[in-house]
């Protein structure tokens, strides 16, 4: 049994899986609210420790347990999406299973938050394992796996001649109805418009998902809604612009309250400024 805490603490964990070992830090608030644990996924800067510092106060305020995995560049050169060469999904599953041994809340749905590359992993994980996810928070993803066949995998659920594309598209598509029932909150900074080297830029991607992260988030919002409605599912998806924020998770948290948004009880704190 987890020991009782008198103050918010951080513990280190490691979980081995067929895909490799994944270290993580867990923020344990002194007072637990009973809200689902939150898994926070870093972007390509791999700033897990900084995320722990940035999220700690909101873990204490909300009473949520927050888990921050660290996908190191050496072990996990590609962590943004499950594919033949990397299986971050298996590592996350193993981490959840290990934590569930002492904390049953991890056996049920957990909330996911990811920024940039972490948002890419978060939504792809949720597409594969929607039953493991409670609420999905995607901040400033560079691009998405659209929930339709307008683009070939990994940009969508269409198939092409790439090895394994058909297999992954099938796996994602199988879980699509359950995925489209998830509550999904998209975030992007209102000033996140820079097309720098960290943003994937390809003519087809620019044309079909948009040229900036804002455009691409809007496209994803529209496609998610359409895919859900096509299946008779009432979508619970929204996009929030974070005023004055660029592609910077620290500013998004410190200046725009992103951590407060993703840790709060969504039934008690409706978002303003949703698109």
């Amino acid at each position, binding site marked *: 049994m987890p020991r009782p805490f008198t103050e918010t603490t951080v513990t280190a964990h490691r979980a081995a899986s067929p895909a490799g070992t994944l270290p993580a830090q867990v923020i344990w608030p002194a007072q637990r609210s009973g809200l689902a644990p939150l898994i926070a996924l870093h972007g390509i800067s791999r700033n897990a420790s900084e995320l722990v510092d940035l999220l700690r106060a909101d873990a204490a305020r909300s009473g949520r347990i927050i888990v921050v995995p660290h996908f190191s560049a050496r072990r996990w050169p590609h962590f943004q999406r499950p594919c033949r060469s990397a299986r971050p999904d*298996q590592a996350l*599953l193993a981490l*959840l*299973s290990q934590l569930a041994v002492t904390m049953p809340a991890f056996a049920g749905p957990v909330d996911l938050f990811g920024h940039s590359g972490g948002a890419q992993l978060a939504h792809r994980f949720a597409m594969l*394992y929607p039953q493991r996810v409670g609420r999905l928070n995607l901040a400033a993803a560079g691009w998405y796996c659209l929930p339709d066949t307008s683009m070939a995998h990994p940009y969508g659920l269409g198939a092409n001649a790439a090895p394994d594309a058909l297999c992954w598209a099938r*796996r994602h598509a*199988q*879980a699509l109805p359950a995925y489209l029932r998830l509550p999904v909150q998209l975030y992007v900074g209102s000033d996140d418009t820079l097309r720098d080297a960290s943003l994937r830029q390809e003519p087809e991607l620019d044309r079909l998902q948009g040229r900036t992260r804002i455009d691409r988030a809007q496209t994803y919002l529209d496609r998610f809604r359409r895919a859900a409605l096509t299946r008779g599912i009432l979508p619970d998806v929204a996009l929030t612009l974070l005023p004055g924020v660029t592609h910077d998770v620290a500013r998004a948290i410190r200046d725009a309250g992103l951590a407060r948004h993703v840790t709060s009880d969504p039934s008690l704190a409706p978002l303003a400024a949703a698109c």
Partner: protein
Amino acid sequence: MTQQLLALLDTAKWTFSTRRVDRAVIAGMDHDFAAASAGDLILAQVQEIGQHQRVQLVSGRPSNIFPGDMIVLACGARYAPDQFEGLAEIDPAGADLLAGGGCLGRMVARNARIKPATRLLPVGRLCDAAGGAVNLARFALPANAQADAIPVIMVLGTAMNSGKTTATAQLALGLRLAGYKVAALKGTGTGAFGDYNEYADTGAHWVADFTDAGMVTTYREPLSRVKAGLECLLGHAAAQGCDIAVMEIADGLFQRETGALVADPWMRERLSGLVFACGDAVAAAGGVAILASHGMRPDALTGILSCSPMAMAEAVAATGVPVLRKSDLADPAEANSFALRAIAATQRAA
């Protein structure tokens, strides 16, 4: 019980099929072997070593056997085209060890590539205090009405050794890695710990086979009893808190009980997912056609077939059914797609 019998039973090798037996109910033995029926417990002595040089113990390990060894096992039939066909009959002059898991009977057919059966000398049929034969059915799990509550992915195949057990175990592993509490079940066949242990090694939440439903073998059992056994196992899987079950049905589609099950509407109504294991593309096409004639279509093909990329391509072309390797079945992403489909099917049926 006489001191002599007590000593014999204490030193005897109790086989896997007897693992549910409460030895305290045994009070004696008779020699009415003509009256022995499937499931009756027999104390027998190894007479001559043949095909089986070992038996599988209750403890889960194999034991070499030697002439003179005392063994407790169950009278039963056997269907194994790679080994023997046998009937649940005990000849007082000598009986055949039909399966190392603990099945004694009379061999009626033998695969040309294997040795004659190991011969056992029946010593006695074990009885309770009232003089009645002690049968495995007495120790079966009680019937359970929760069977409908759990989705079940059935694993069928073309024959023995087509890859069903591997498929069952690997899918159970994938489902467990995806976060499910999985029941790995062997619905039909002859009692042996190999499959049981392979399932257990995957970390499945609950593992059981038809011996837990009181049968040493399902061969030549009435279909109603076989189905009741399957329902019993599924009900207990649900009661154990399992989210989903993977159930292997032994042997091929033409085998007597498997064929009857596949043709029975119960199977079509009960399954939430279906995996078919086979050895080559022609077998895949044949199996898919037979299943289609009963209103079923596999979600995936697997088995020995999946070792060959060329055979896989031919099978997909012939059937339109995807072929999954064992590593695919063990992949939580793949297994989860099975589970979501199976759970949705069960919810629709409810």
